[in-house]
């Protein structure tokens, strides 16, 4: 029903397109252009043909080490950092706007944490740098301090942003062809809801496709504002907009890898802000995942919480949503280390959420059943009482694999804890400080130099 409803909207209402390049892409695959070529009616045949040419999976590569590869669409779940405008400063306790140093710190933090599989931009902007070239400076620092794969959404709209960032990703990959062979970034392309193909995102779509960067296709509607106020209606419009972008992308470059992406909050009806921590947001992600599964297309999404600090609300919103996303089959979830809807980041929080992700991973393992794990011989040997499994070889061999032993979460006896303990936040802070003091960038010095040189070129060009 959702698919049929979305197709009806595409066929009867279509999408608006204010860009001749995009109009030609749609026209080439049998879409009808009306209203001075600004309204595109998309037939089901074009949607289904486009979906058929999309690969069912792709890989975002680690740049130095295949163990950092993230397989998208094969059943694996990868977690990625989120971004923010403010930071809880780990050293001063102050809440302040983010800077270039925070971009470096956030990248190193994500690089060091083993359950952080990828990065979104480590901070939203660099408030201590010029806005012109802000994305270029941010990207250079990001690429200089990790080799893990990443995810990119349009930032400032500056004139050279698309070409510069792609060039920097290519430098980080070791060259243009190296990146084409082993893409390490996921490029987000977004509709302007309701139902407008955005000119700037067409720039990005072309840049991503030309450079071999897989696409993340998202609607980004806001229920009750730029989308309907029902959960089913939100999903229908999401699919309208996702299908339109899939048709556009596959027309431009048939067979180009892409994933459906979930980032579709409802509007908070008091403030007008997007509400990302809500059940309907998470459920929408599950809905898009179901549609992706129906078409055998990978799916990714943004997690997020609305809490304005890292508290019980952020914890339960994130844990519930991320677990739901993992079960729904999202391959790449952008969430770690941030809250308040792209507003606040914290490195101790990233440390804690690194552990949360490990919990989720353990849940996903479920119960593996085989002869050895069924343990029948050991059960027969030990019981009935008196008898204990504690000194059995079977126990020694298996407990580390079968039982989860957290690094930071409390497992102490209540009364011992009462007598004296280190708060969870303090443990996380200590670990984060240790990383900041000791973790070194894994990026080769010659690549760092090349990135610096290219950044210098951008700065000279734009700032003189």
């Amino acid at each position: 029903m959702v698919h049929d409803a979305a197709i009806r909207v595409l066929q009867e209402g279509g999408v608006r397109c204010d860009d001749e390049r995009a109009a030609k892409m749609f026209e080439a695959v049998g879409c009808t252009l009306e209203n001075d070529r600004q309204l595109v009616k998309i037939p089901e045949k074009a949607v289904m043909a486009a979906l058929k040419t999309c690969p069912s999976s792709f890989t975002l590569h680690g740049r130095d080490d295949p163990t950092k590869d993230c397989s998208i669409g094969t059943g694996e779940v990868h977690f990625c950092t989120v971004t923010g405008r403010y930071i809880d400063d780990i050293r001063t306790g102050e809440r302040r706007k983010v800077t270039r140093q925070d971009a470096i710190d956030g990248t190193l933090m994500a690089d060091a944490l083993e359950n952080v599989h990828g990065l979104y931009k480590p901070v939203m902007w660099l408030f201590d740098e010029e806005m012109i070239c802000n994305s270029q400076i941010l990207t250079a620092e990001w690429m200089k301090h990790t080799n893990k794969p990443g995810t990119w959404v349009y930032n400032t709209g500056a004139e050279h942003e698309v070409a510069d960032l792609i060039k920097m990703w290519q430098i980080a990959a070791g060259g243009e062809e190296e990146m084409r062979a082993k893409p390490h970034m996921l490029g987000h392309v977004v509709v302007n809801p309701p139902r407008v193909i955005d000119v700037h995102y067409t720039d990005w779509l072309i840049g991503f496709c030309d450079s071999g960067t897989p696409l993340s296709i998202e609607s980004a509607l806001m229920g009750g504002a730029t989308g309907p106020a029902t959960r089913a209606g939100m999903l229908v419009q999401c699919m309208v907009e996702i299908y339109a972008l899939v048709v556009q992308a596959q027309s431009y470059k048939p067979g180009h890898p892409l994933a459906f992406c979930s980032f579709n909050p409802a509007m908070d009806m008091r403030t007008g802000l997007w509400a990302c921590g809500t059940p309907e947001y998470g459920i929408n992600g599950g809905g898009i995942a179901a549609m992706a599964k129906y078409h055998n297309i990978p799916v990714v999404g943004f997690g997020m919480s609305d809490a304005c600090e890292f508290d019980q609300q952020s914890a339960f919103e994130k844990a519930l949503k991320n677990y739901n996303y993992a079960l729904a089959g999202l391959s790449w979830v952008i969430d770690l280390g941030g809250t308040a809807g792209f507003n606040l980041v914290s490195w101790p929080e990233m440390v804690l959420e690194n552990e949360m992700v490990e919990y989720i991973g353990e849940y996903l393992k479920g119960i593996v059943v085989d002869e050895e794990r069924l343990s029948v011989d050991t059960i027969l040997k030990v019981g009935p009482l008196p008898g204990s499994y504690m000194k059995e070889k079977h126990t020694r061999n298996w407990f580390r694999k079968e039982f989860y032993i957290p690094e930071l979460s409390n497992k102490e006896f209540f009364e011992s804890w009462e007598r004296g303990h280190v708060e969870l936040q303090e443990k996380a802070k200590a670990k984060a400080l240790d990383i900041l003091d000791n973790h070194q960038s894994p990026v080769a010095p010659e690549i760092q130099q090349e990135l610096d040189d290219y950044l210098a070129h951008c700065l000279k060009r734009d700032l003189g």
Partner: protein
Amino acid sequence: MAITIDEAYFDALADSVIDGEDEDCVRLVNDGLEAGVDPLEAVEKGLAKGINQVGVDFGAGVIFLPELAMAADTMKMGAAILDEKIRESGSKRMSHGTIVIGTIKGDIHDIGKSVVAAVLQANGYNVVDIGIDVDIDTFIQALKDNNADVLGMSTLLTLPLMTMGEVIEKLKEVGMRDKIKVIVGGCPVTQEFADEIGADAVGFDAQDAVVKLDGLMGVNRQVAVARG
């Protein structure tokens, strides 16, 4: 059948705004004019009373943005008819001030700006929303055309921030800066940035915009009671 202009009439007019019933509002306004209602009185005792109640109810969390926005639109439709009559009579209706508001050139984000517009209107400001992707000259012209007191500029993106400063510079150039208060808002806008470009205030959210604008315009609000 001609209607009677009495308290029940004004209450019905106020209710049409509160309920966001455009057609009822327009019909009541037209019927009222036909029956000889003083247009200024129709605004003050009917439309303004309704929208003020909406503002109070919204502030108290009794109603939500869609209801607020619909009420603001209804108010506008009724006021457009009445304003024409008021102008013809040479009078002027009271408001806390006229604000021209828009999303700056290079940005097509509409929602945040529209929320602020609705909330300001519900709080007694005359709001002229000139939309998205608005260039410098269009802002200036709209301020002149509407004899505005306040300029409101919004953006969700970083690069259009620069244009906000250019609009303020243009205001100075054309000799309007002294009579126009400037309030800015949007995700990347900080107090430091507002100070840097010479804006008078930042609205960090819609309610904050009301508080800041009240401060700039010298508005003292009575404590009002929300509907239960």
